[in-house]
């Protein structure tokens, strides 16, 4: 199904299955609460704002900006050793939701706070177990 390194993968469960299926299509699915409208990441059984379990899925535009980031030279899993440093960022989506995600297709030294990033297109998304971003215009 996917080529590339044997990255550790998230465990699919009832909460996140739709999110994982969507990412295989290159889309980033967020949850939105039917009761209070709160949008959030990562996939959960309850709205953390109002505790409703009436949750729907929305597809994020896939655009955001780097809030802060770390360049990781010592990843835990050896699957990542061939591509250090791993650029792990807090990304704030235009929907207002923040998440942790890798910034790829970028010279690590060029990554900056405030940089605009977009979701990887589907063809490249397949390589990564979770939504990853690249600089806008890359």
């Amino acid at each position, binding site marked *: 199904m996917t080529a590339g390194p044997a990255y550790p993968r998230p465990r699919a469960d009832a909460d996140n299955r739709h999110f994982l299926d969507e990412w295989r299509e290159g889309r980033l699915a967020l949850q939105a609460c039917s009761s209070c409208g709160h949008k959030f990441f990562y996939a959960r059984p309850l709205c953390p704002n109002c505790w409703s379990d009436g949750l729907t899925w929305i597809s994020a535009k896939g655009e955001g900006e780097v809030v*802060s980031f770390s360049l990781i*030279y010592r990843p835990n899993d050896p699957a990542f050793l061939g591509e250090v440093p791993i650029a792990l960022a807090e990304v704030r989506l235009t929907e207002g939701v923040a998440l942790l995600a890798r910034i790829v297709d970028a010279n690590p030294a060029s990554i900056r706070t405030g940089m605009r990033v977009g979701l990887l297109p589907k063809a490249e998304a397949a390589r990564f177990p979770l939504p990853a971003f690249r600089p806008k215009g890359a």
Partner: protein
Amino acid sequence: MNRSIGILGYGQSVYVKKTDRTLFSFFAEVARQALTSANLSKGAIDGLAVCSFELPPDNAVTLAEQFGISVSWAYLGTAGGAGPVASVINAIRAIDAGHARTVLCIAGDNYDVAGHYRLMDNFNRALKNYATPHGFGGANGLFGIVQRKHMETYGTKREQLGRIAVGQRASAMLNDNALLRARLTLDDYMNARVIADPIHLYDCVLPCSGAEAVIVGALDRAPKGKGVRVLSGYERHNHPPGEVAPLRGGWELFRDALYRDAGYGPADMDFVQAYDDYPIMVAIQLEDLGFCKKGEVGSFLERHSFAWDGSLPLNTGGGQLSCGQSGAGGGMIGLVEAVRQLRREGKGRQVPTARRGLVSGYGMVGYGHGLSTSSVILECVQ
């Protein structure tokens, strides 16, 4: 907080990088030491609190089985590095409510660097599913994000944060139990290899094996001059909710109550034992606990020195940054050092003026940051 109840004794194991010893063997060693230090025998223990990542599937009750003791109160910490300080707060309340008379609080783990990586990859469902698949580098990667945000938001500099690591190492050189005892200069700190930029080597703790313990009970049972009163104590979990990498923690919510209950302020603390998984988190604790304003810790760090004989004695045994992080034991190392100082048993690193001090915990890393915070203010019983 009932001021007639406090800490009667303490124990600390030797820290080792690798070991064939069992976790229970470390626990027994520190429990024995703590009993000796409190001048009590095993039969006196009727309450047991334990904080340990490697303990499951065992727990506080099965530890009682291993120890061959019968207890009327059992507590299993779930707040990571904030758990041990929280366990002492809860032990005092349990004794005050009559659930137990003498509580043994233990914290520790027996693992190494590889074991620490395995722990972080499986720490909780959010990290396992949404951080591990990114190659997140464990806590280093997450706190790299926090530190960069603090540096870029407030202008905090690495050479300011480095003063924490350098000061603590000067104290560790006088602690036989510390794993890292070679002198550390600010140049060493600045030029160390990068781990998870902006986190470098001397921002990180060395995962190791070891354990810590204290005994909580009525202070009139303490050996003469050796009791330690807990003036105030609070814990807070999941503050602020919903943020990935906040520059503040639960300390900011209970700070005012902590000092009000104690009857003292930050300037009255003769030392601080702050949870030091990273210098940036010590810095954030100093802000949230009112030693300086939010965002101003950089200049505060420049104005002060942090060795045992510095202007603000900080983690006076060397802390986790120099002693090593014995898993959940890292949440009790500061508490035990505080008790040692207040009993005037600090030997070569005794803070001459030590009458009272603050101990702070932090832990349970979730999706981006530690969820749990705890603090106590301690005072020696004259």
